[in-house]
């Protein structure tokens, strides 16, 4: 927690992220907090534990575009970390703009399109307990950006957000995936995919049977209507197995 003082009566109050105005609890003065020349350190706490992150991974891996059986992939390691980004609030031609810049160069998937995941931001100071998570240190200084940003400064901060990096092995190959430790969003650039071929093949067979049944039933012989029933059965039974196995 950061403590500030009322400029009128000197009484202390606690600053919280996002606060711009504060009414002094003692003298009632409305206090304006000028953040244009300071840098704030914020941190978003983890809302998922490692076990939950693993289960989020398994849910993601069971998705329809992922290879069948990926949800049972062997997990090699789970790394829990706080990842830093800079956020600048600038006033450009009377408009307020948010600019997000990398604080750390990284090859992690999904981290190149920068964003701050949703979360309940806290002040990050030496009293904040980061637990067993590694705090990734920025390798780019804020000054490197400050001089080149348009407009005038309104706010600048460094935000550490919670992240899990899961390394997993599938068919002898290693992959990695990132999970936002706050909302559970999954980022991945490369993963084993599932083929649509068996799905499409079955669907087309069932469709063609029904089509041939209807067209033939009207134009050639009523007996051919049975093909429609065959299409339904093939689609239903085959579809169930394909959805389960492929």
């Amino acid at each position, binding site marked *: 927690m950061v403590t500030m*003082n009322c*400029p*009128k009566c000197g009484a202390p109050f606690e600053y919280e*992220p*996002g606060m*711009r*105005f*504060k009414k002094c609890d003692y003298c*009632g*003065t*409305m*206090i*304006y*907090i*000028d953040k244009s*020349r300071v840098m704030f350190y914020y941190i978003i706490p983890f809302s*998922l534990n490692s076990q939950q992150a693993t*289960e989020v991974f*398994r*849910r993601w891996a069971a*998705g*329809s*575009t992922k290879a069948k059986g990926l949800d049972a992939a062997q997990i090699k390691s789970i790394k829990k970390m706080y990842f830093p980004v800079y956020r600048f*609030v600038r006033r450009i031609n009377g*408009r307020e*703009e*948010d600019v997000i810049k990398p604080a750390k160069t990284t090859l992690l998937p999904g981290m190149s399109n920068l*964003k*701050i995941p*949703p*979360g*309940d931001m806290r002040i990050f100071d030496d009293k904040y307990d980061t637990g067993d998570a590694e705090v990734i240190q920025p390798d780019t200084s804020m000054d490197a950006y400050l001089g080149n940003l348009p407009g005038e400064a309104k706010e600048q901060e460094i935000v550490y957000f919670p992240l899990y990096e899961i390394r997993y092995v599938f068919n002898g190959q290693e992959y990695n995936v990132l999970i*936002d430790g*706050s*909302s*559970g969003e*999954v980022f991945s650039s490369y993963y084993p995919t599932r083929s649509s071929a068996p799905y*499409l093949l*079955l*669907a087309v067979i*069932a*469709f063609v049977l*029904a*089509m041939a*049944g*209807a*067209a*033939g039933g009207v*134009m050639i012989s009523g007996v051919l209507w049975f093909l*429609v029933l065959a299409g339904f*059965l*093939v*689609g*239903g039974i*085959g*579809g*169930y*197995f394909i*959805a*389960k196995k492929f």
Partner: protein
Amino acid sequence: MKLTFGLSCPSCGGRIDVEEGDHLAICPFCHTVSKIEGEDDVKTLAYALVVDEKKALEAAHKWFKHGFKARDLKEVGKIKEIYHVYLPFWRYTAKGLGVVCGYNYRTDSRGNTEKVYKEKEIMKDYDWSHIACDAGDIGIMHLRNYRGEVVPLPEDAPTFEVTTSKDDAVDMGVQEISKRIVKEAQIQNITFSKTFVVPRHFVLLYYPVWIIRYEYKDKMYFLTVDGVTGQVLSGRAPGDSVWQGLAIATGSTVGGVLVGLALPAMQYVDARAGLFLLIIGGIIFLGAYSFFRHGSEIVEGDIEKPYKGVDIPYLKGVLKWA
């Protein structure tokens, strides 16, 4: 370096009570009117949380049973975590005015198509909202409900911080409302349109939402429940192979029969009816295929889906043409 500034009357130094978003302040002591500038802050409001934990859980259990979710979800699904959070939304209320000109095609009973010119004037109130932080995997981008008991944001309320610009939000709001005005005119071919968006209110609205995480066969899913209306807003749930099989069986049979009938229809009835059957059959088949292929996870709300949704306006256009 000073970080905090007290707001007091520049004329007599007395204390003035200023609320966020105020533009003018009157000093209660010397009655001087002061203009507040520099910090055009947005008024912050919140809706009261009226749905309690029990009701949110009830909504979740009800949701488990509905739709094409895993049939054993209601027995096997275990709720692991439930908490509420106030999500920030930019809410823009405006009066939309517009003139839209253009023409529609109309076909009379004898099959003659004519161009019908139209001019429409629109005046309507619009409400638009957009989440003020990254949506992450929460699945709520826009509010669906604008009724609630307005309260100041509770002091210790868990909130997600605002991380997007309010000016960007205003721009988005104006654009979105302009689009809605033009759509309101229901003119297919637009030759001219002019819209005006007159702002009424722009607030930062904190909306209470329950976030529920649950486990199903060692996998973590979630859903969100509206803290005002008690409805499920978004969520992820396991699907079921039985529904997938049933979907493709029904969809390909119905679709196939319709397409199969298209040929005799074209030959014996008329070409237009045949074409109509062909398109309807095709759409049913494609819809069923999409569910068959991706139905292993049911996704609700504004979450990116593994398949593209059906473009309803485009389909309507195709059907009209047919």
